C-alpha cells in the first residue's frame, strides 16, 4: 500500500469520529468569521489579492440573488411590442440587424488589413537583435563583423541549399535546427509530435520569419495528416497552423498549441 493511504485506510476500517458531522458543521459556520477577520487583518500584497478575490465572489453572489428574485417579481404584461414592427411575411424570420452586419464586415476587413488574428498568445516579449544574433568576427585579422550567428532555434526546410559559406551572412547552426514540434490540440488536450512544414510568422519581425527563427509566439505550419482531420467538403486536411508556447532554445524542443 502506498504510504499516502494510511489515513484513508484507517477511515475505512474504523470510520470517523462520532461527532465528526457536528464538528464539520460548526467549523463551516465559524469559517465565515475567520474569513472576515483574515480579510481585515491581511496586509500588503496578500491582502490586496484576497480583497480582489472576495470582490469577485461578491459580484457573482449578487448576480445569482438577483436572478432568483426575478422569479418572484411581477412584470407588466407585454402589451404590443414597441418598435420593430414587421409585416406578416417577415415574422419569425431571423433577420440580422443591418447595423450589426455592416459593423461586423467593417471589423473583419480591418482585422484582415492589420493582419491581426485570434491566437492563444496575442502578446509576447520582444526579442532584441543582440539577443537573437551573435556577432561573428571573420577575416584574417578577425576584424570584419558582418557575419551573424542565430542563437535561437530555427527551422530549415528540407530541400534547402545554403549560399557559399564565404558569402553567407546569417549562420543557422545545425545544433539549433529542429524539424518536429510537440503540438497540443486545445480541445482534445492531447499532444502529438508533428513535423514542421514551415514558419508562417514570427512576431518579432519579417526578417526572422524569412530566416525561419522559432521563438515563443511564432506561428508555424505543421503536418497534421496523422490526425486524420477532414474538411466538411470531404477533403483531407494535411497542414494546420500552431503557435509556439515555450522558449525552444531553453528547452531543446518546440511546444506548440494547434490553432483550430
Amino acid at each position, binding site marked *: 500500500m502506498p504510504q499516502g493511504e494510511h489515513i484513508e485506510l484507517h477511515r475505512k476500517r474504523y470510520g470517523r469520529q462520532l461527532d465528526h458531522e457536528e464538528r464539520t458543521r460548526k467549523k463551516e459556520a465559524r469559517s465565515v468569521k475567520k474569513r472576515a477577520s483574515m480579510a481585515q487583518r491581511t496586509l500588503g500584497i496578500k491582502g490586496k489579492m484576497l480583497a480582489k478575490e472576495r470582490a469577485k465572489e461578491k459580484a457573482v453572489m449578487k448576480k445569482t440573488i438577483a436572478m432568483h428574485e426575478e422569479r418572484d417579481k411581477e412584470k407588466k404584461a407585454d402589451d404590443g*411590442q414597441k418598435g420593430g414592427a*414587421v*409585416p*406578416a411575411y417577415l415574422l419569425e424570420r431571423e433577420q440580422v440587424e443591418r447595423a450589426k452586419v455592416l459593423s461586423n464586415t467593417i471589423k473583419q476587413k480591418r482585422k484582415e488589413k492589420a493582419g491581426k488574428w485570434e491566437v492563444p498568445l496575442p502578446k509576447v516579449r520582444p526579442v532584441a537583435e543582440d539577443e537573437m544574433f551573435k556577432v561573428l568576427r571573420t577575416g584574417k585579422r578577425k576584424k570584419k563583423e558582418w557575419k551573424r550567428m542565430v542563437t535561437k532555434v530555427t527551422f530549415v526546410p528540407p530541400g534547402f541549399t545554403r549560399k557559399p559559406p564565404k558569402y553567407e551572412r546569417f549562420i543557422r547552426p545545425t545544433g539549433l535546427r529542429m524539424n518536429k514540434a510537440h503540438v497540443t490540440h486545445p480541445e482534445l488536450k492531447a499532444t502529438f509530435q508533428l513535423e514542421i512544414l514551415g514558419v508562417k510568422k514570427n512576431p518579432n519581425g519579417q526578417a526572422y520569419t524569412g530566416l525561419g527563427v522559432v521563438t515563443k509566439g511564432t506561428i508555424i505550419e505543421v503536418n497534421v495528416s496523422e490526425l486524420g482531420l477532414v474538411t466538411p467538403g470531404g477533403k483531407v486536411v494535411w497542414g494546420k497552423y500552431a503557435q509556439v508556447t515555450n522558449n525552444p532554445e531553453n528547452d531543446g524542443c518546440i511546444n506548440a498549441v494547434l490553432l483550430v
Partner: protein
Amino acid sequence: MTERAAKQQKLAHPVPPANVIIQFQSPEGEATGPQLDVPHDVTPAQLETLLNGLLQAAERLPYSFFIEEQELAAELGAHLLKHKASVESVLRVVYQPQAVFKVRAVTRCTASMPGHAEAVLSVNFSPDGRQLASGSGDSTVRFWDLRTQTPKHTCKGHRSWVLVVAWSPDAAIVASGDHSGGIWLWDPATGKPLGQCKGHRKFITSVSWEPAHAELPSRRFCSGSKDATIKVWEASTRRCLFTMSNHTQAITQVKWGGDGLIYSAARDCSINVWAAADGRMVRSLKGHGHWVNTMSLSTGYALRTGSFDHTGSIPPDMDAAKAAAQQRYDTARDGRPERLVTGSDDFTLFLWEPSTQKQPLARMTGHMQLINQVTFSPNGRWVVSASFDKSVKLWDGIKGTFVATFRGHVGPVYQVAWSADSRLFVSGSKDSTLKVWDLRSKKLLMDLPGHADEVFSVDWSPDGESVASGGKDKVLKLWRR
C-alpha cells in the same frame, strides 16, 4: 479595291428575304385566316390591323404577337434575324388579346402622407380604386382620401400591430387582423368599427373575402393564423361559422376561390383545398420542401375587384353588380379551371390546378433565395415572383415555363403589384426603392426612389391611376404619372 470593298459590304450586311409567309394562330392553337405574304419590315401595329380585319371585329382590339414563345416587339425582319428563325416554312404567329385600356407608368411621388406612428405594414386600395386603407405597427388602421391625399379616418381598436387589411369585394367593409389574433371590421365611409371577431389565439397572417359573384353584399370571409387554423366568419354577426384545422404549422396565406373552394398555404409545406360551404377538406397538395410563403389564383384580380372595373362605373343595383362580377369572373377564367401558383422557402414555385388534380402542373425553379410573393397578372396569363435574391422572375401563367428575370434591386424584393391591364408591374424592396417594369420589353421602365427605409407593401389601384407604397419609414407614398 472598290470591288473588294463592295464584296465586304455585301458580306457584312446580308439582305434579308423580301417577303415572309405567315399564318395567324389563336392562343388555343387553331389557325385564323389564310396564309399571308407580308414584307419583312412589317411592324406589330400593322399586323394588328391585319388581324382585326381578318377577325372582322366590331371594334379594334389590341393584340400582342408571339413567334415561338418570343414576343414580337420590333419589325418582323429584325426579329427573325435576332432569333434566327427560319423563313423556309410558314411562320406561325400566335396572337394574344391584350387589355383594351392602357395603364400609364407612374413616374413621380405626388404625396408623402405621414401619420402613422410606426412602420406601415399593409397598404390596400379598395376594389373600386377610390379609397385607400393602411395598417401599421402602431395598431391603427387609417383611411386616406385620394383626392386631397390627406388622412380621412384613424381607426383605433387593435391591441398590437395590424398585419393584414382586406377590403370586401363590394368595398363596404374592411377587415383587419393583428398580431395578437384579433380581427376588427370597419366601415370605410365613417371610420367606425363594426365589431370584433374573437377566436384566433395567435397572429393573423391572411384574410380573404367571399367573391362578389357568389354573394352580394359581402357576408363571409375567412382568416388564417399562426395557430394553424382557418376560421370562416360571418361579417354581420361577427360569429365564427366554422373552423378548419388540418394544418400542423402556421398558415401563411388563405384565398377564397371563385368555385366555392378555399385554399390555404401553410408552413407545414402543404396546401389544403377546402369546400367553402361546410369546411370539409377536399384535397391536400403536397410537393414543396419548405414553408409555403405565398399563393395566388389566376382569377385573383377578378375576385378582388368584384363588380368594379377600370372605368370606375358603379353598377345600379345588387343584381346588376352580381351579374357584372360573374361576367368578369368568367372572362378571367377563360373556360379553364382556376390555376393556383405557390411560392415557398425551398426557392421553387408550383403551378397547380387544385379543383381537378392533386399533382402540380409544373414546377418552376430558378430562384436562388426564398420567394416572398407570387402574383398572377390580371388576365391570368403571367406569373411574377418576388424573391429575396434581389430578382423578380416572370413565368408563363398557363404552362409554368420561365420567361424572363428582372434584375435591378439591390436588396430582397418584398412585394409586387400588377397594373390593371397586365402590361406593367411595380416591385417594392428592402433597398427602399420601387421599380416599375415593362412586360413587353422585359426591362426596367421607371425607378422610384424616395422612401427612407424598407418598403413593406405596394399596391396598384384598380383604375390604374396611382400606386401606393408604405414601409418602415412610417410614411405612405402615392405615385402618379
